[in-house]
């Protein structure tokens, strides 16, 4: 929608935004914060995929860490054992993750709601247990260490700063592609499946094909993110890809607003920073964290990115524009 209206000022805003983003590593000197920002970028990629699957297509996945793990291990093993470059390894990792996404989509096609949740939880656990037990290849619980750093034209991407550019270029591409998908016919079909699968089917939509492709797309995002995560942290061990991590991705998706691509970014920023900011509380940190999850789930059914209309409603109320307020309430009701 924005695209057609874009004029010089919005262009300037966008350019300014990009400029600010590019300056981030120079503004934030603290390496620990930069590390967190990089992690946020990686999580954001996973959550974008999850939003396409869960928010747009309505297929709840609680096994996203499985695809993430597959991406990390595949690319790390290809780089370590076969000496492939990071880029080729990432490409293959994405393909492997997509294939797995299609495989898990086959039983998932017939499942809805809690049954689908169970199947995806099971998938995530199966992947983790294979990583733990297939010791000759994955080195078991100890995990892979000394995963080589990616290099581009002889320039080794190893510092936090260089990783920042690598990760955020991929994130920007990821957001761009996801927005294009969500605004296209494919995106509208996903939403149709979420809203009423039966109606979509009776309109002649090949729902199965689209559901499988939603799984594949989300797996590709998670796979690429995993591949970068492996190189970024230098290690990949099974306890980085547990059920709790899948749940964490889902929380980021819901809190940011699973029905928006930008919500993925908002969610991963919010949860990562909240969890870091609460560190001073030590023992009580996770209690507060749980309370925040609970309160956002209750108070913001559409997540943070869905708060726009609510804020607008309040600001209009303050300005006394009650007519608009009624409209917004009406449209919100339709959303449900």
């Amino acid at each position: 929608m924005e695209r057609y209206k874009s004029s010089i000022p919005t262009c300037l805003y966008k350019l300014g935004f990009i400029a600010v983003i590019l300056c981030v590593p120079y503004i934030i000197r603290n390496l620990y914060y930069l590390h967190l920002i990089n992690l946020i970028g990686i999580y954001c990629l996973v959550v974008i995929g999850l939003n396409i699957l869960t928010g747009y297509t309505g297929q709840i996945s609680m096994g996203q860490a499985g695809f993430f793990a597959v991406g990390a291990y595949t690319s790390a093993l290809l780089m370590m054992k076969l000496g492939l470059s990071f880029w080729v390894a990432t490409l293959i990792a994405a393909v492997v993750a997509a294939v797995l996404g299609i495989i898990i989509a086959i039983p998932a096609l017939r499942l809805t709601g809690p049954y689908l949740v169970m199947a995806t939880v099971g998938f995530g656990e199966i992947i983790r247990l294979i990583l733990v037990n297939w010791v000759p290849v994955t080195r078991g619980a100890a995990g892979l260490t000394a995963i080589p750093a990616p290099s581009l034209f002889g320039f080794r991407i190893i510092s936090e700063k260089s990783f920042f550019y690598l990760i955020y270029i991929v994130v920007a591409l990821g957001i761009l592609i996801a927005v294009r998908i969500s605004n296209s016919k494919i995106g509208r079909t996903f939403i149709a499946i979420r809203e009423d699968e039966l109606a979509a089917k009776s309109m002649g939509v090949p729902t199965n094909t689209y559901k499988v492709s939603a799984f594949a797309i989300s797996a590709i995002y998670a796979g690429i993110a995993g591949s970068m995560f492996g190189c970024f942290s230098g290690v990949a061990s099974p306890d980085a890809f547990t059920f709790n991590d899948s749940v964490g991705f889902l929380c980021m998706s819901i809190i940011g607003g699973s029905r928006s691509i930008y919500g993925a970014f908002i969610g991963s920023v919010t949860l990562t920073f909240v969890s870091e900011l609460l560190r001073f509380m030590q023992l009580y940190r996770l209690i507060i964290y749980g309370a925040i999850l609970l309160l956002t789930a209750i108070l913001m059914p559409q997540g943070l990115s869905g708060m726009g209309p609510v804020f607008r409603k309040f600001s209009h109320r303050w300005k006394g524009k009650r007519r608009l307020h009624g409209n917004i309430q009406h449209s919100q009701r339709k959303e449900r």
Partner: protein
Amino acid sequence: MKGWDILYYLVNGLPIGAIYALVALGYSLIYASAGVLNWSQGDMVMLGAFIGYNLHCLLGLNFILALLITTPAVACIGMLVERIVLRSLRKRSSPPVNVVIGTLGVAIICRNLALAIWGPDAQLFRSPVGSVPVEIGTLRLFPQDIFILILGIALMILLQYFLKYTREGKALRAVAQDRMAASLMGIDVGKSDTLAFAASAAMGAVAGILIAPLFFVTFNMGAGIGLKGFVAAVVGGLGNIPGAIGGGFFLGLIESFASGKISSGYRDAIAFTVLILILWLKPAGLFSKITKETV
């Protein structure tokens, strides 16, 4: 496979299956009444184990007395979860995934409160019925296992009685069948939700006290058991009470056979693979009729 082997796996799988069945019943009961997933179910098990540990091992209370105090206490917590969390979510007609996140929040709060109160160490809960095994041939039966089976099955029968013959139980079944129609008939659907949460939490608490002597009592024991109970409930068909019991025992037996016959490391992976395959063949659970949605 020799006959003794099969018996051995049965003996190993049944008690843990009974525990899974109790937790699965909790998920199923709540799903039947309120139509939501309650992810704090596993932590009710943990709370049951900890409160029981506190009363029985620290205060030296009689085991039965401890059980009788713990169960209603945890049931109250379950009721609170329904009153505070589910009702507020319902009021805003949130999508089901928000209920998942909300109850996950409750689970995280419970887990870390337990960590704050009881500390990170695993606590030893001595079995109230002793630990001298009874030997029959090459088979060794532990008294705690038998105790779990007896108490678990007794509780399941009690639940069936409650659902079939009491007024509240009948109301709950009516709500499970058709929430709208039940509310039109004057049944208080909110009360039935509260009841389902309380009963689920109570069963979780009993499961927690029963399993405490088998494993240590830790603040994060709820995560694993909760997940297994959920899986058992789903495989049996969510909302299906006999299905949940069947699913629990089925999962316990699969795990026992998988760890004995194939590999203990892959035990859970095998169990999950089997369960996903079952869901592929029977998308609404092992014990449910397939109902295809039509217009």
